[in-house]
């Protein structure tokens, strides 16, 4: 099994396509960092224009932590496409190249082969998130320095002490990895039905767009479905940046406003992963390979 995973990883990282995702993330982050470095003051003024008269902010709000938060909000919407590029190609790409029949005539079970492929796609997804973390968090911390994290939510502001931020990012990235692995599992599941990778990649993105719209629509009939849709839970990483407050309305360091929501979301995502991968294995084991 370990050999199979190593071989699958070798194949992933020998393909030029793999590096498109890493390059795209690097290009986007560097452009945003460049823009904010040059014109951070304007952005800060823009952020503060609605509340500028009601409170005074002392210090540097355009710091590495805020830049990372901005970039996560922007990029985590698009990372699913980069994940789907590889995950949705894992089986369909082999079928398209004609290598699937050669792989399946080797002395491994189909279940082993599929699990190895999914685990390799998971490793790729996690590496993509680590790359995102290195550029969006660590590089931003280096370029913009540290400071308290000032976030504007829809009806309130959150100010997190700089000593209380880093672990939240660690949690957020771990959660984001789980969310993106769910996307990978969906792409992987869809890839068993096709003999070219375009179909499953487009289908994966279509599913995500469709269910994201359902998740955000505020129509009562859909509200029953929302808790069960994985798209509802993809952005639960933001919960790490909501704090509890004490009676004096002061933030409690090290607290999370609603930890149960994070746990529930993680469980829903895990169930989806098991469902997608289990479904893929079940169906693929019954399939005749005609490619």
């Amino acid at each position, binding site marked *: 099994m370990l050999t199979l995973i190593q071989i699958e990883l070798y194949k992933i990282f020998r393909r030029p396509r793999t590096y498109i995702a890493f390059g795209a993330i690097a290009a986007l982050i560097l452009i945003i960092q460049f823009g904010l470095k040059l014109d951070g003051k304007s952005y800060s003024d823009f952020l503060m224009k609605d509340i500028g008269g009601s409170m005074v902010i002392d210090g540097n709000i355009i710091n590495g932590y805020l830049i990372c938060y901005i970039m996560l909000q922007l990029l985590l919407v698009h990372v699913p496409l980069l994940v789907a590029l590889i995950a949705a190609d894992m089986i369909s790409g082999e079928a398209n190249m*004609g*290598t699937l*029949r*050669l792989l399946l*005539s080797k*002395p491994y*079970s189909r279940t082993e082969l599929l699990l190895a492929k999914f685990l390799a796609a998971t490793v790729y997804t996690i590496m993509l998130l680590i790359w995102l973390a290195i550029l969006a968090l660590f590089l931003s911390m280096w370029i913009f320095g540290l400071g308290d994290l000032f976030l504007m939510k829809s009806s309130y502001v959150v100010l997190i002490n700089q000593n209380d931020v880093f672990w939240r990012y660690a949690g957020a990235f771990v959660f984001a990895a789980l969310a993106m692995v769910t996307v990978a599992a969906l792409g992987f599941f869809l890839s068993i039905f096709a003999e070219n990778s375009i179909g499953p990649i487009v289908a994966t993105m279509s599913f995500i767009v469709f269910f994201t719209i359902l998740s955000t629509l505020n129509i009562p009939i859909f509200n029953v479905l929302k808790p069960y849709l994985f798209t509802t839970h993809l952005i639960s990483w933001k919960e790490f940046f909501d704090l509890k407050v004490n009676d004096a309305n002061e933030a409690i360091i090290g607290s999370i406003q609603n930890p149960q929501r994070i746990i529930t979301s993680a469980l829903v995502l895990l169930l989806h992963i098991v469902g997608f991968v289990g479904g893929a294995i079940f169906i693929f084991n019954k399939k005749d390979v005609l490619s």
Partner: protein
Amino acid sequence: MQQIVRVTDLTKQFKNLTAVDHLSYTVNEGDVYGFLGQNGAGKSTSIRMMLTLIKPTAGHIEIFGMDLAKNRREILRNIGAVIEKPDVYKYLSAYDNLQLFARLSGIRSTRKQMMDQLEMVGLAQRAEDKVKTFSQGMKQRLGIGIALVHNPQLIILDEPTNGLDPQGIADIRNLILHLSRESNKTIIVSSHLLSEIEQIATRVLIIDKGKKLVEGNATELLDPAQTIVELQTLDNAFALQQLQLSNWTDKVQGQRNNTIVIKLDRKEIPALHTDLMNMQIQLLSLQPRHSLEDYFLQVTSGNQHVDTYTN
């Protein structure tokens, strides 16, 4: 002789199509087993069932004396296969592909062993080149190299000469003969180039519409009484006239593509040659054409080639 493959009543139904219909055959140790049939006859489906790519609807496959359904892993460890096109990873080099499939087969080879393997299929000079730069023939040779990399006992080659030039076809033929004679490998070869099968197969199975038409020793299938001879002369009209005035007239089948076709016993060929000389016919070539191909076309009802001669 030990049976390596024993297939019994193998059937595969795809919705309304019966691709393989109660097919039974055996392959013995050391055989070069020619698997013949027209396109869509069920050859590839049968081969895919032997490699567990397709699940049989009914029937039983036994390889190395073990039930394939129950001992898949152990059996596949000893099989090397090229299935239809020899598709490999185009973004990897020949060497990397070979190494990858060696590892998949549980083999950890040294660089020298890998290079020897590539040398055997004539690709050592291109070992580090990406496969996307290879011709179809080179890919075919690499596919065969991959099939052999783990030194399997049974080799299954589905259309191994596809896309090869004449030299490449001869190389593959020699390789198959070498593997059979020197290494005592059992080899199943399917091909639409029946003349190739004729030159290498020790036993032959002919199938049509998923059913077995005939299985047997290749030489026994060639009935010497049914030999076809093709003549090319400087003046075919004169030659045809002379032949029709001679004792050979009943055996002359007619003329096709600038050749005169005569059907006779193989033993009569020397006498025919002598008579042609005596009749002052200026002979360019005399080619016995009785082959497995003729037999194949006859048993698969595709014998138009003997029916379309013109006198």
